[in-house]
């Protein structure tokens, strides 16, 4: 890690004014004894934050889920709800309130789809410049410059819908940089991207911030990949901040992980040349694929985006019917049902035999309370109410969520939602578990908990299938591998 050199002069004359800091002059950020408490919460989201970020510095702000990173970022961006939050201490951007410095702020958030406005790439970059009232003839040179700065590979006319996640996120970054922010805030900008997409975005950030015309603060619980391109690493911990020295490395999430071993069992579910093509589509979403799920073992399905990994998960889970080939349950799994093909089973029969965890947990929640959410599957599969409630309580206890039993699933943090979605699938004790990217965007603690939970299921004779980009997960858990 290096100390920042003097900021270089911007290559085009500055045009955007802004409350704090003029364009092209990096901002200085100072926090002294900062604390934030959200309305209706008893605990402080953030306390004792002391931090000075010098102009042009690139700082990584890391910490576990729920440590208060997002709150600190919202405070820096000046978007903390004034009535909804109680703030103590001091936080300034270039000596003034963050709210007043918003003209010089650049913000890159997680989800590219909720940041793009226009239908074409160039128009989207121009959007922020139009808002700043820049004359039209000055806009396009700056659009081209910003697109080049992030290494955007297409022309201005490229439809935004035709871009991959990583490309979209690079485009959003170009739109942010075109405004020449003095403070650039990146909020887990790669959390929703596959590894190649994430690498693209980090490369674009490295390239675009190399001239130090903006002070850059990256917020991410996954510190490792950012280390080569930041000057300092600061970790948010309960009660304040810890500054990590040069050479610091995040602890490995697999270190000291002891998992119960796989047990060899019979085949429970098999796909024989099963493929899927959407109606009217000329190319198959999944070409004919053969796979076997064995009791007590984990199958890891890997491969780049667009090869049909998630589609295979839907076929194995009995949620879609294959358009070619077959998916068949072994007699043991299909006991009590007349048909061998899971997609023909009624939902109530399916839920006690195959548990599925989707990529986005919030799409799976059906009730307004955690307790009801966990009891739902057992009730649907025909269990008695008392038994279902007992199962729900046991799972809440096991996952450390008992304190939230009455809470609405939507109000949980990302990591808690993920654990809950896995727990709802386990509630009916299915013999087969199918999970799509279960560790996506999770911090180290949640990661270890999920992996342990899955290994326990494997040890009790469950057949586990995971679709994933996560090489650590494959390393820790996979007994069989299928690369698409």
């Amino acid at each position, binding site marked *: 890690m290096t100390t920042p050199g003097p900021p270089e002069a911007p290559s085009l004359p500055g045009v955007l004014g802004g409350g704090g800091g003029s364009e092209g002059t990096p901002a200085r950020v100072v926090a002294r004894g900062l604390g934030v408490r959200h309305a209706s919460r008893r605990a402080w989201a953030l306390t004792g934050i002391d931090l000075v970020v010098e102009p042009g510095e690139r700082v990584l702000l890391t910490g576990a889920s729920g440590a208060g990173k997002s709150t600190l970022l919202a405070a820096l*961006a000046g*978007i903390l709800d004034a009535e909804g939050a109680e703030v103590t201490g001091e936080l300034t951007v270039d000596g003034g309130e963050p709210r007043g410095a*918003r*003209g010089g*702020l650049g*913000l890159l*958030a997680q*989800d590219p*789809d*909720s*940041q793009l*406005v*226009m*239908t*074409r790439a160039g128009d989207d970059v*121009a*959007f*922020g*410049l*139009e*808002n*700043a*009232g*820049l*004359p*039209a003839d000055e*806009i*396009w040179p700056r*659009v081209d410059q910003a697109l080049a700065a992030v290494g955007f590979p297409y022309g201005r006319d490229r439809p*935004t*819908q035709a871009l991959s996640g990583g490309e979209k996120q690079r485009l*959003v970054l170009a*739109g*942010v940089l075109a*405004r020449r922010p003095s403070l650039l805030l990146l909020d887990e900008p790669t959390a929703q991207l596959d590894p190649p997409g994430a690498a693209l975005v980090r490369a674009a950030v490295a390239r675009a911030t190399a001239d130090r015309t903006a002070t850059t603060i990256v917020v991410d619980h996954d510190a490792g990949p950012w280390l080569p391109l930041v000057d300092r690493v600061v970790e948010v911990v309960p009660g304040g901040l810890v500054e990590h020295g040069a050479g610091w490395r995040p602890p490995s999430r697999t270190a000291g992980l002891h998992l119960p071993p796989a047990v060899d069992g019979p085949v429970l579910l098999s796909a024989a040349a099963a493929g899927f093509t959407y109606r009217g589509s000329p190319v198959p979403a999944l070409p004919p694929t053969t796979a076997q799920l064995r009791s007590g073992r984990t199958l890891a399905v890997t491969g780049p985006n667009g090869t049909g990994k998630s589609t295979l998960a*839907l076929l194995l*889970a009995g*949620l*879609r019917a294959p358009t070619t080939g077959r998916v068949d349950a072994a007699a043991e799994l299909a006991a009590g049902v007349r048909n061998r093909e899971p997609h023909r089973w*009624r*939902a*109530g029969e*399916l*839920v*006690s035999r*195959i*548990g*599925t965890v*989707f990529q*986005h947990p*919030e*799409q*799976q929640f*059906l009730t307004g309370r955690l307790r009801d959410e966990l009891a*739902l*599957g057992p009730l*649907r*599969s025909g269990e008695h109410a008392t038994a279902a409630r007992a199962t729900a309580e046991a799972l809440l206890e096991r996952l450390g969520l008992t304190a939230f039993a009455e809470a609405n699933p939507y109000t949980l943090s990302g990591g808690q939602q993920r654990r809950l979605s896995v727990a*709802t699938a386990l509630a*009916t004790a299915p013999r087969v578990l199918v999970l799509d990217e279960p560790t996506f965007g999770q911090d180290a603690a949640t990661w270890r908990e999920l992996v342990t939970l899955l290994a326990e299921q494997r040890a009790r004779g469950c057949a586990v299938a995971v679709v994933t980009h996560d090489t650590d997960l494959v390393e820790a858990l996979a007994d069989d591998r299928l690369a698409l």
Partner: protein
Amino acid sequence: MTSLALGPALGTRLGRINPVAQLAAIGVVTLVLLSSLDVVTPAVVVAAELCLLPAAGLTSPRDLWRRTWPLLLGASSVGLVNVLLSEDAGVITGVGLGLRVVGLALPGVLLVATTDPVRLADALTLHWRVSTRFAYGALAALRLVPLLVAEFESVRLARRARGVEAGRNPVARARLLGGIVFTLLVGAVRRGSRLATAMDARGFDSGITRTNARGSHLHRRDAAFVAGTVVVCAAAVALSVLTGAWDPVFVG
């Protein structure tokens, strides 16, 4: 919603007409079609609109069907209901009403099929002084529609995975659909507020007068397009009056 999700076909000849000229023409057509109850006027107008289909790039029957089936369904049911239920309405009146629905809605289909929504927002804000907050806000929201369509399917499958399925019971089906729509709405509101934050951070609606990088220019062809529409409508009315079919709605 489906025709919105289809998106515009870019680079068509009709697409080169400025969106405000298209809207003005739609205004003229609407006025004329709503002022009489005969069958001749809408027949001429619809015939003229059909002549514009090739210019809108809608030549394959498949494309045409995908964009117009809700409209055709609506038009035929309006015609049929009037013929069957009204005592004094004959087959001719029913056909006239059906044609009128087609004549009113087809220009909208043509506009959506040929116009990049961004150009529409540009034209509305620059020529008609529509608020930029409204126009570009609506534009951003429009981008989220295809995402909702894709999400609907995931949420439906996720419910089956949780053991929730309607089967053949229509009441259960309606309840399930209601639940899915609610889940989608919650997601849409959350995504919408994230989008608003992102737009805000890029200086949207910050009080500075917004400029427009693309501009929106009115050409002679735009004036000709509106004039042509007026001529066709006048011809339709003249023909209707001459054949004695004219049946004005506003009789003093």
